[in-house]
């Protein structure tokens, strides 16, 4: 089913995204109001009353559709809250898309929000249901750091080369974030800063990790044929897939921690829908889930941008730099833009939307026509994965 065309093609006609960062002075409600407000400001003549249905993605900031209905004081509207780990923002988008693609609604809004900084804890935390106490209490960096020794062993990559590739990812994404007024960290960093940062898990230091931040984002989605009623520069959804992994990678033998099979499947399906046959040359830019630096390295292979076992080399060669053949995380990525769980997937769309409309300013990728937004959650061996292909032409 996932490879079949939907009843209606859809387009994004407006988006909003708050700056990500330490919003000590704002609540989740405030952030949602800001993101939705920015989104609606670009649609003169359209009010929230004209939106038929809403989705809101959040992992731990609130429960039920009232997370959005209350701050916006929506009256008589259907609002659905969704959650899918760090792919929550994408899940909000995906379900909103289905609302239009199915013909049920004409105009819908996808939103995502997370308020992480009000806790005083390091990294992410989640409230889990009662259990038997046998699960390893992984930190997120610990889970993702498993990629490093496994990848090195599988492809014979030495410590220095691997460290160099990880560092390059961090340096590159901070350099991109430095060009972005909405990013959490708008400062370029040197390789020394990355490599001297305090170690957190395995070979990963603080500077190998994404920014823990607050933020919200929003998108308005309509049928593709209606898009020009709202904007001169709609962005079209060309392909989209989502896979919730079976978790077998942690529950049985076989998985080797060098790939995200869920991403591979999702990418194949999205590319097929979009008619992409050679992503390495056809994709103009990609926003990928660089929650930790080794994640981005492995994703270059899972998305078909690099050959298996060669991504570390392509990363070092600058292939994914802003001026490279296939710029990745032009807005700074999770690494420097920040990662408020429920908002991240939509933040990726926001950058693709901005680039495909030619509005990215200093970060603009020349002649951007086709962009990939890839978002995942969970951990290697047990993840959920989303891939979308967006285009400037229908």
């Amino acid at each position, binding site marked *: 089913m996932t490879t079949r065309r939907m009843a209606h093609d859809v387009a994004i006609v407006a988006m909003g995204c708050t700056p990500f960062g330490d919003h000590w002075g704002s609540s989740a409600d405030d952030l949602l109001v800001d993101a939705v407000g920015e989104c609606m400001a670009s649609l003169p003549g359209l009010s929230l009353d004209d939106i038929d249905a809403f989705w809101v993605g959040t992992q731990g900031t609130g429960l039920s559709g009232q997370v959005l209905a209350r701050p916006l004081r929506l009256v008589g509207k259907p609002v659905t809250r969704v959650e899918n780990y760090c792919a929550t923002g994408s899940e909000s988008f995906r379900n909103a898309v289905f609302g239009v693609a199915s013909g049920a609604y004409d105009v819908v809004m996808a939103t995502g929000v997370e308020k992480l900084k009000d806790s005083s804890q390091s990294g992410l935390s989640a409230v889990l249901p009662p*259990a*038997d*106490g046998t699960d390893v*209490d992984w930190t997120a960096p610990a889970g993702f750091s498993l990629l490093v020794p496994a990848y090195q062993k599988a492809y014979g990559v030495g410590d220095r080369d691997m460290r160099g590739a990880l560092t390059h990812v961090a340096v590159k994404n901070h350099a991109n974030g430095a060009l972005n007024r909405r990013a959490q960290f708008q400062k370029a960093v040197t390789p020394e800063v990355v490599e001297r940062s305090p170690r957190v898990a*395995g070979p990963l230091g603080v500077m190998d990790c994404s920014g823990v931040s607050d933020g919200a984002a929003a998108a308005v989605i309509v049928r593709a044929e209606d898009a020009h009623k709202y904007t001169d520069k709609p962005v079209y959804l060309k392909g989209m897939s989502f896979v919730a992994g079976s978790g077998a990678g942690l529950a049985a033998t076989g998985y080797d921690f060098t790939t995200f099979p869920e991403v591979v499947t999702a990418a194949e399906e999205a590319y097929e829908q979009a008619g992409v046959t050679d992503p390495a040359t056809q994709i103009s830019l990609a926003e990928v889930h660089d929650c930790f630096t080794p994640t981005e390295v492995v994703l270059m292979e899972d998305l078909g941008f690099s050959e298996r076992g060669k991504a570390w080399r392509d990363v070092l060669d600058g292939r994914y730099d802003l001026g490279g053949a296939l710029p990745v995380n032009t807005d700074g990525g999770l690494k420097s833009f920040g990662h408020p769980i429920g908002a991240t997937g939509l933040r990726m769309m926001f950058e693709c939307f901005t680039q495909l409309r030619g509005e990215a300013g200093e970060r603009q990728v020349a002649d951007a026509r086709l962009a990939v937004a890839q978002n995942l959650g969970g951990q290697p061996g047990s993840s959920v994965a989303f891939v979308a292909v967006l285009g400037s032409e229908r």
Partner: protein
Amino acid sequence: MPEQNGIGAYAAYLPAYALASNSLEGAEPRPGAPVRSVAAYDEDAVTMAVEALREITAGASAGDRLVLATTSAPYDGKTSAGIVHAALGLDPAVVAADLHGNRSGATALDLMVRAGGVAAVSDVRMTRPHAPDELAQGDAAAAFTAGDAAAVLLARTGRTAEVLDRWRLPGERHDRVWDERFTAEVLVAAAREAAQRALADAGLDAADHVAVASPNARAAAVLRRALGGSGADAEVERQTGYTGAAHLGLLLAATLDTAEPGQTILLLSAAEGADAFVFRVGDGVRSARAGRPVREQLAGRERLGYGRYLHWRGLLDVQGPARPDAPSPAAPPMYRRAGWKYRLEGALCDACGGITTPPARACASCGGVGADEAGSVPMNRVSLRDRVATVVSVTRDRLTTMPDAEVAIVVADVEVEGTGGGRLNAYATDVVPEAVTVGMTMRPTFRRLWTTDAIHNYFWKLRPWEATTNDD
């Protein structure tokens, strides 16, 4: 039941760590000073009892009773032996019960020898930092099953003397001790009487081996001299400290490690009275031991710094990372998944031969839905508890909620003949995190992961296999 009362199999368990100095200034230990055996932060009387018992109950029947003796039960009220029973996977018909107090080690041994079943003696000694006997107390476990291969009981006597020697109020962490010069007199008098009576009952003037355990070091020294012991028991004690309810069993195990068939052993406890046993060493004593000899375990330990020891014991309140406590387990899922939690059982798929951990209705390898109640693919349970696991990938968590700056976490594969093998995700223990590498072999060990909301969370970790490989 055996034809004669005695010991069929035995094992001792010493934790991997030893403390040789309790100098806050970092001074080197004095030559010849006592060394204390230290349970790791993830060990307690229950986990050490499991490690001592797991080898000797693997193939043999546990009889109808498991008794656990300790002065450091991890719960008040709740029975510790029940947790040991679950981890060993004993038949539900085996009754599990605790014995408490300074005399409980001797009582457990007595019960087992005379009435059958299995006995575990296990203790963690909590002294106040810089207490005079801090390095003279220690942590250990030993275990015994009924039988006659290792030793036969020739005589058994006891004396009761109600005396305020060593005590602790409920909720207190550290023992209080009366002037040992006074209590030594009481204990020595009781113990000499008990020993003489036991030897007489056994028709002996003296025994080939003498082992004396007493919380009162002065009493132990006097009795060892008076009974003509070789001092081998004192030598073990200098390297472990007095291990409480476990000590009599530890000294007996160390004696059995070296005793020859036909020799006699006088085993004497001087605590709140006295308990004396006279054994004749059995013909099967060499094969009656499970696990490594006591002296080999003593030699293989790692020296621990005093600061780390204090931190492990909660005697030094150290700022940890800004992370929430690890979640506490809940009773119904613990009960439903007891096979996994306590016996490390995965589900074996009849269709593809893959093992799924934790066990689930659907196979993680082929997706076939198992037939716990109704379904197409039979799923059997297979325990990975005693298997060797090979590390697939490893990380070092430096934001751990455990009392160490970093902990290695591994994904490891277990080979099981005739199957596709199984996978374990587990904390590594008894190892420096940087020493854990891809391809390393490890083996499950029962540990206390953490305690949250007053619930101890027991589960299996992995320790380097080389540390236990000499068992066989």
